[in-house]
């Protein structure tokens, strides 16, 4: 299912270098390839020489920071011991602190709500737009490209633009609501609305990704199926539910699972727009973790790292499901 998408990047090598290589092939003595194949050991060495930089990089810049994070979460750190590095080992104490914290329940709740609502709308809107643009009308390619803009913008740009649009007194959103007779909503400053606000902004950012991936999924559905359905008298709505939707299931699964992993870790948008507030009303695990570690005058590195590790476990768990699904699809 993913192969047709890959083909965009997998360009055929250009003719010039290919023919040059071909010429070399005829000039070379024939037994050479057999000899090359009989020397797997040197090839192994060469391969790992090419992989060495990235492997070292993974160990130093992924594994070690992750290890430091686990270590942080198992010790009692203060600012002084953070610098000196002699914090006492306290086992799972930090995790207990986190579980008993009154923020835990709401943060879990917000993370679940934020993730599911964002995923649902990003997917639904992305799919509707993908089906719409798949009709290939005039301008459709250009407009589809323009839809990428929200996804390409730096998150701080999107977040600050939305902050100003949702400003209680001078924001365009409240001004428009006012003209239809709805009173001012304190989007970012009221605990009732802050989570909704960051969800709206995040949906806006996520729609383009869903649109692009689902659109390339639609392209791999053979047009003859639609013609057959149309001949059988199926209307557009019926064609969508009996042809498009079922055949898009593999791509949908991939899109949603990836979306899940990436929505779980959304931090920038929430932090810039509300800092998780007011009164923790838009705090998710991601912002809570950062709040504990960096957001206060007295950093709580240990509990911060503990929350972060819970998030890592959740993200990796769903990530593994994603990889499984993807592998299964590649095999079938």
């Amino acid at each position: 299912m993913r192969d047709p998408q890959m083909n965009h990047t997998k360009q055929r090598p250009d003719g010039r270098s290919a023919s040059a290589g071909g010429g070399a092939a005829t000039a070379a003595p024939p037994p050479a390839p057999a000899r090359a194949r009989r020397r797997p050991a040197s090839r192994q060495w060469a391969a790992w020489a090419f992989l060495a930089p990235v492997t070292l990089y993974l160990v130093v810049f992924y594994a070690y920071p992750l290890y430091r994070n686990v270590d942080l979460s198992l010790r009692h750190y203060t600012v002084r011991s953070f610098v000196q590095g002699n914090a006492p080992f306290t086992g799972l104490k930090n995790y207990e602190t986190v579980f008993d914290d009154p923020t835990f329940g709401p943060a879990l709740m917000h993370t679940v709500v934020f993730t599911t609502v964002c995923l649902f709308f990003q997917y639904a809107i992305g799919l509707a737009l993908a089906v719409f643009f798949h009709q290939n009308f005039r301008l459709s390619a250009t407009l589809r490209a323009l839809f990428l803009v929200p996804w390409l913008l730096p998150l701080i740009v999107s977040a600050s633009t939305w902050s100003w649009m949702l400003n209680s007194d001078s924001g365009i959103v409240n001004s428009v609501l006012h003209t239809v007779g709805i009173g001012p909503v304190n989007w970012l400053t009221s605990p009732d609305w802050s989570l909704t606000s960051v969800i709206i902004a995040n949906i806006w950012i996520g729609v383009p990704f869903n649109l692009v991936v689902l659109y390339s999924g639609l392209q791999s559905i053979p047009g003859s199926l639609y013609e057959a359905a149309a001949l059988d008298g199926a209307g557009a709505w019926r064609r969508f539910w009996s042809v498009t939707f079922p055949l898009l299931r593999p791509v949908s699964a991939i899109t949603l699972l990836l979306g899940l992993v990436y929505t779980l870790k959304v931090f920038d948008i929430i932090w810039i727009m509300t800092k998780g507030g007011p009164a923790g009303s838009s705090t998710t695990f991601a912002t809570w973790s950062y709040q504990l570690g960096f957001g206060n005058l007295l950093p709580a590195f240990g509990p911060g790292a503990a929350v972060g590790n819970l998030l890592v476990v959740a993200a990796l768990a769903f990530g593994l499901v994603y990889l499984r699904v993807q592998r299964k699809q590649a095999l079938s």
Partner: protein
Amino acid sequence: MTTPPLIPSRRRGTWGKSTAGVVLTAVMLFPVYWMINVSFTRDQDMRKSPPGLFPLHGTLTGYRTVLDEQLPYLGTSLVVALGTVVLTVALSAPAGYALAQLRPRGGGVLGFVLLAAQMIPGIIMAMGFYAVYLSLGLLQSVPGLIVADSTLAVPFAVLIFTAFMSGIPGELLQAATMDGAGTWRTFRSIVLPMSRNAVVTVSLFAFLWSWSDFVFAGTLVNGGAHQPITLGIYHYIGNNNQEWNAIMATAVVASLPAAVILVLAQRYIAAGVSAGAVKD
């Protein structure tokens, strides 16, 4: 009862669909328009009710502020983003070649680890980097930020290079070996030049992600001598600054790379999104 022929009905609706498409795009891009509009709005009109839909009395004050205050930030962002591109390509192109063509034992595991690495939340990486950099004295340093930002792109880049380089015919590389070229020579003179498109895709994404990075910058170089533009904007907002035209003008300038890339290299972006399907 006859079914109406498919093709004519499609063509009949095409103008209506184009119009609907334009309207949908306009709705989607309204926040972008609003950012530009506000960036030209005068201070005294900023809190006008209702807000002006067009910058009728447009001003360049905001952009003047950007020129006065934000150029160092933009410079840092440029250096960091370019550094990230170089580091990312240098690390991942050889890795992609090895995974795609040399296929060593254990390569699959490495590929798997790279995929899993993309799933780790950025703030977790940032906290880990903070702890490591603190002991190494690398906080507030540009090279430190470049290395941290490259973690945003390296797994994706290896994936793209691997996918692309497995499309290079093996006979071609064998021919080079027969001509006496070593693995490195083959990589340098054949594989890399043929992978130009992959290099472009990877560079674009590495540049954009590094340019847009806020988490690493906010954690690792906040308050330092060299801060990127994302922190420039963040400090503007954080200081309870009311000059929204200056904030939005900075945002517009910070969006320029994305705009340029969209206009000049859109096909690489769309291809990268679908092929990697990595970032949301």
